[in-house]
Structure formats: structure tokens, C-alpha cells
């Protein structure tokens, strides 16, 4: 494994009344896309803020690029798209980006030149002199995305980057993120949407209630979780199918969508018995495939369905 870009060592952050992050350790290697996964309110944003030195952990330490220097002093090497999007509403798009580049250490002219190139690339070339408040929400999000990339950072931190984007823009941003990773730079992004993480991430860490549940390379995580997963699609008699999926002798856990399901076989059960039961029940089976577990099912299994609902917490520290 290459030298870690981000090393988080047993950090804990308490806010009035609750602990947002407890004893969390992470190691993010250079290059590739690292997904920080967790339900809403799990402590993802707080962790990211501590990595970026916006918040200081109560205990534990964070190192960037192997340095003990505060993350803010390394901000020329880090790009950040916060979860709460925000720009100066009255500022013109180009001025805004020039400023965002400047506070990351770029010279103004250089910053302006780079901003123009990016705006062209993301289809905002005609909007450079418009005020931010005249832009649609999606456009504003793209402007801010550009702002986090202007200075060619080695580490790009994106907090929920795709939330609120339409499929076209989502795709556009995904392409950029993948390209950054391909150039050997590191992307850390947080999400609670598992399908997205599954397609993009090389490594993931799942956190819930402020604690790490698991982390590692995506392929390892899946392998460790087991190969006793079956993907099913049935075309009739959904009620009978559902009854079979609830049989603990056959199925340990089922993610049932009505017409399709992903199940984890019970330890003493085997695929043959499940297949026979389903055929006997005449459910019109059109797919029966032994698969790798999806990130979604790993997530549900590890975190537990109840963790999807965060405990009551102050909005101030979300």
C-alpha cells in the first residue's frame, strides 16, 4: 500500500449533549476513490471537517500527506466541496472562482485563467459575468465543484457531491471525479447512496453513530462478507415467494423488492434447496444467480436497518 494521504488516528469529537465521532481511525492511501459511507447523521461531515482542520478533534490526531502541520496550512494541496453548498450570492461567477482560487494560494490571473477553462468545460462559459444568484441551483453546484478543483489539489474531498444533481450533471461530475483518480490523485467522498459508491469507489469505510463499522478495499470487503448471496427475479406469486424468503432454514437475510430480491443464504441452507422451494411455489423465476453481495446489503447487514434513522441530534452539529 502506498503512503497514506490521510491518516486519522483515534479521533473523538463531542458536542454539547452527544458524541458525534468516537475513536475513529482511517487510513486513506494515495490515488483512487475512497468512499466514506454512513447513514445520515453518522458523523461523516464531522469527520471530514476534522480532516480539513475546520474542527479540531477533542482527542486523537489527523495527518495529511504525512505532515503534522494543520490541514489548513496544506489547503493549497486540498480541494473541498462541503455538504452545505454556498457561494456569495451577489458576486459574479468568475470573480467568485478567482477568489476561491486565491484563498487556495493561486495568483489571481492564474486563478481567472483556470476558472475560464473549467467553466467552458462544464458548460458554463456563457455565465462567467452573471451573478451567482442568477444561476440555477445545479449550476451553482457546478461552480462550487469547480472552486474545489481550480488549484489542481492532490486530495479532493467531496461531501455528498451528487446530492440534488440531475442525471446529466451527475454524470458530468462523475466523469471529472474518475478522471482525477485516474491521474493518480486522491478523492475522498462521502455519500449515503450505496449504488453510487459501489460503482465508483476503490476503497470504502462505513461509519454509523460516529464509529467505524468496517473499511477496506471494496473487493476485499465483498469477499470477506461471503459469497452466499443470491439475486432473484420472479414474475408471479409474490406472496408465496415472500413466504419462502422468510424461512430461516433457507434464508438468513433478504432484501425484498417484491418482484426481485437479494438474499443471503442461511448457514445450513444451500442454493439448491432455495431454488427447489421457489420452483415448487411456482413464482415464475426469471433470474437465479449466485452473486457478490451488493454494498447496500453489506451496509444494511453491518449497520442494521435501525441505524438508517439517526438518533435525535442538534442541527448545529450535523
Amino acid at each position, binding site marked *: 500500500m502506498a503512503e497514506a494521504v490521510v491518516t486519522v488516528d483515534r479521533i473523538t469529537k463531542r458536542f454539547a449533549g452527544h458524541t458525534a465521532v468516537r475513536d475513529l481511525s482511517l487510513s486513506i492511501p494515495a490515488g483512487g476513490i475512497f468512499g466514506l459511507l454512513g447513514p445520515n447523521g453518522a458523523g461523516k461531515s464531522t469527520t471530514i471537517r476534522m480532516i480539513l482542520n475546520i474542527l479540531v478533534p477533542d482527542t486523537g490526531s489527523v495527518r495529511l500527506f504525512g505532515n503534522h502541520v494543520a490541514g489548513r496550512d496544506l489547503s493549497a494541496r486540498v480541494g473541498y466541496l*462541503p455538504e452545505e453548498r454556498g457561494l*456569495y450570492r*451577489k458576486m459574479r461567477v468568475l470573480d467568485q472562482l478567482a*477568489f476561491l482560487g486565491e484563498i487556495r494560494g493561486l495568483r489571481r490571473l492564474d486563478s481567472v485563467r483556470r476558472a475560464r477553462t473549467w467553466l467552458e468545460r462544464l458548460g458554463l462559459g456563457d455565465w462567467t459575468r452573471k451573478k451567482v444568484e442568477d444561476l440555477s441551483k445545479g449550476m451553482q453546484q457546478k461552480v462550487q465543484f469547480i472552486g474545489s478543483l481550480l488549484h489542481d489539489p492532490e486530495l479532493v474531498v467531496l461531501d455528498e457531491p451528487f446530492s440534488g444533481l440531475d442525471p446529466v450533471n451527475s454524470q458530468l461530475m462523475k466523469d471529472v471525479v474518475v478522471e482525477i483518480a485516474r491521474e493518480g490523485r486522491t478523492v475522498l467522498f462521502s455519500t449515503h447512496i450505496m449504488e453510487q459508491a459501489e460503482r465508483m469507489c476503490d476503497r470504502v469505510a462505513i461509519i454509523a453513530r460516529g464509529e467505524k463499522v468496517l473499511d477496506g478495499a471494496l473487493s476485499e470487503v465483498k469477499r470477506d462478507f461471503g459469497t452466499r448471496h443470491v439475486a432473484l427475479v420472479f414474475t408471479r406469486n409474490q406472496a408465496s415467494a415472500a413466504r419462502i424468503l422468510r424461512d430461516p432454514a433457507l434464508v438468513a437475510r433478504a432484501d425484498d423488492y417484491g418482484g426481485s430480491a437479494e438474499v443471503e443464504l442461511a448457514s445450513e441452507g444451500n442454493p439448491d434447496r432455495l431454488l427447489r422451494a421457489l420452483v415448487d411455489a411456482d413464482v415464475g423465476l426469471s433470474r437465479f444467480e449466485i452473486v457478490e453481495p451488493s454494498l447496500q446489503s453489506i451496509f444494511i447487514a453491518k449497520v442494521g436497518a435501525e441505524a438508517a434513522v439517526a438518533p435525535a441530534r442538534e*442541527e*448545529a452539529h450535523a
Partner: protein
Amino acid sequence: MRKFIAVVTREFRERVRTRAFVISTVLIPLFFTLMIAGQIVLSTRGAGTWRIAVVDAAQGSFGARIEAALRDAKVGTGASAAQKYRVERITAAPGRIDAVKDSLVPLTGKREEVPGKLDGFLLVTEDALTSGAIPYYGGNVGSLSEMDNLQAALRPVVLTERLVREGVGAVAVQEASGRVELVTSKITDGKLTGESGESSFFLVYVMTLMMYFALLFYGIQVMSSVLEEKTSRIVEVLASSVTPFQLMLGKVVGVASVGLFQLGIWAMAGLYLTANVAPILSILHMSSDAARGVQLPTVTLPLLAVFLLFFVLGFFLFASLYAAVGAMCSSQQDANQTQHPVTIGIVLGLMTMFPLMNDPNSTLARTLSLIPFTAPFATPIRYSVAPLPLVELLLSILSTIAGVLIMCWIASRIYRIGILAYGKRPGLAELWRWVRTA
């Protein structure tokens, strides 16, 4: 450092570009000019000629003397001078005085033109001569300066009449009771400045008012700028690359430079105007006599330096507090309520002006120029009204700087946590916890 400069420049650029900046740069001096011009017009043209009746129920020539004195009163100076009062003397027997009064009241202070209309009337009696209290009835009694003028015209007449009755010759009295007045000239540090007392009062008054408005106006701008960054949530991106202290200081310096820039524009315009007073007044069809009426004060360099120094110090003090207020609130309404203590601090500073100008070396004055919150007002006022010992000036500067550093530090501690905290505004105990936590 480059980041800090970027924050300052952004603040400056964005503010100077706004329509509000252009409008306020033009309108504020216009407002002041109109106010001053209005005062000139009022003082020269007055309210025209007053029609006054003198009800003469006194013996001898007392009533006639009053009539003559009022006729002699002039408004304006030189060739443009005009009669101040049009006087009509009505003799009345002492017993009839109430009847005459009742007949004059309906004619007095009428809005529309009526024959025999009066602005007011005097009741001249023997009683008035002995007691020195002359009753005046009129529609214009609310105007203190008019009443002063009238009183000033009557005072020598009463004096003359009393002396004449004691047997002194009228001519001798006239000669003895020539006008006496104080012609003031200010000496600063052993040198004649060529200013009169009035014009140096005027100067302090204007400069203090400007300081008051600038602190309030720009302080609130710092507050709303902090609030904007917080509510638009851009502060998080900023906080990941700039320290909260850099950010707060950058904002304060940025807004302060906008303020100084604006003051600079006004100063240039002011210099140009004072250099060309006469031609400008002639455009406005006002005589140059009017211009001489308001002697424009000269601002000495040290005085300007003291004012600017204390303006900057005061600005850092109050603006950092405004920044802290902006940081601890989550909405404009919230901030409007929370800013009151800071605003009251500035108002208190302004209110020190009058006691200080009356007695610039009292214990109160000395104390006020050592308190960092009042010193930005108190010390320049004292400096311009009376000679201020160098030791006191330096002490005041040092204590204000110390106060500014402490307040900036406290404000930045609040700011640091406040900018990332949303929701309920913190109470005092909570704020104190913010200040203490590492």
C-alpha cells in the same frame, strides 16, 4: 498573507462596486451640504420682517425708546441688510391694557393675510420697567433664537430708561452702553490658528458626528458580511483554507478600507469646494457675504492624524464586536436584536461630546479617554477643544490599543465557533464557554 490579502481585496472590491456605495458616496455629502446651506439661508434671510406692536402703557419716553430700538434692528449685513421689525406703537392708558391686549390677540399669528396682521406684541408698562420682565405675546415664541434677538434689542433700552430716570443724560448712557463682545481666537500649542471658538466647535461637532455615523454604518456592514457568509454557508470553504482570525480581520480591514476610501473621496471633494466657495455660491445666487458668515475651519495635520488614528482604533474595536455578533446569529432578525449592546456603546461614545466640550480637562474627561470604548470619541474631542498633555494622549492611545487587542481576541474566539454553529443564538454562559475552549 496572500490569503489574507485576497479576503481584504474581495471585501473591498465587492463593496465599492455596489450601487449602495456609489449612492451613499454622493448622497451623504449632499445631505450635509444641504443641511449647512439651509442653516446659512436661515441665518441670513431669517424669517423675514416681523410685524410687532408695542402697547405703550408706560410713562415718559420708555415706549418710544423701545419702538426706536426695534426700528434700528437690522437683519443681514452690509448692503443687503433690511429692517428686522416693522413696529407699530399703540398707546394705552394703564387701566385699558387688558382691553387692548384682547383686541390684538385675534390679529396675531394668523396664517392667512388679514389687515393689521401681527407676529406679536409687547406690553410695555411701568411694572415691566421695575421688574425687568416685559410680556411678549406672539406666534413665534417657540423660536429661541428669535426670542434671544428680541431680548437683546430690549435689554439696552431698559437699562437706558432706568438710568435716564435716575438723572443720567441719555447721550451719556448711549455712549456708556456700547456693545461689548468677546472675539475668540484659538491658540494651539503656542501658535495662533486663525480659528474662532465657533468654528473649532463646528469642526469637532462635524468630525465627531462623522465618526459616529462611520462606526455605526461600517460596523453594521461587517456584521452583515459575516452573516452573509454564514447563512450562504460559504464560510465552510473559507474556513478550510483561511483561519477564522484571518477571515475576521480581513473582513474588518476590508470594510475599514472602504470607509477610508469613501472618506478620502469626500475629503478631496471638500478641499475642492472650500477652495472654490465664492464661485459656487454665486452659482447658487447667494452673496459671498453669506460665505463669510460661515468661516470654514482649518484642519491641522496633527488633529487629522489623531482623528484618523482613533477612528481606525474605534473601528477595529466595534467592528470586531459586530463581527462576533454576526457570527453568533443565524438570521438578520436575530442579528438586529443582538447588535444593540454594541450600538449602544457607540451612542454612549457620541454622548460624551457635550460634557467634554464644556470641560475638556475634568476628571470625567480624563477617565473617558482611558476607557477603550469611549476613548475613540473622547480623546479627539479633548485634543481639538483644548491642549492635551502628550502623556495623556499616549496613555489614551495605549489603553485603547490594549482594549482593541483584548476585544479582537474575544471576538475572534466567538467568531471561530459561531461561524459554524447554526440554530439557537447562544446565551452569555454559552458564549463564555466558546471564548474559553481551545
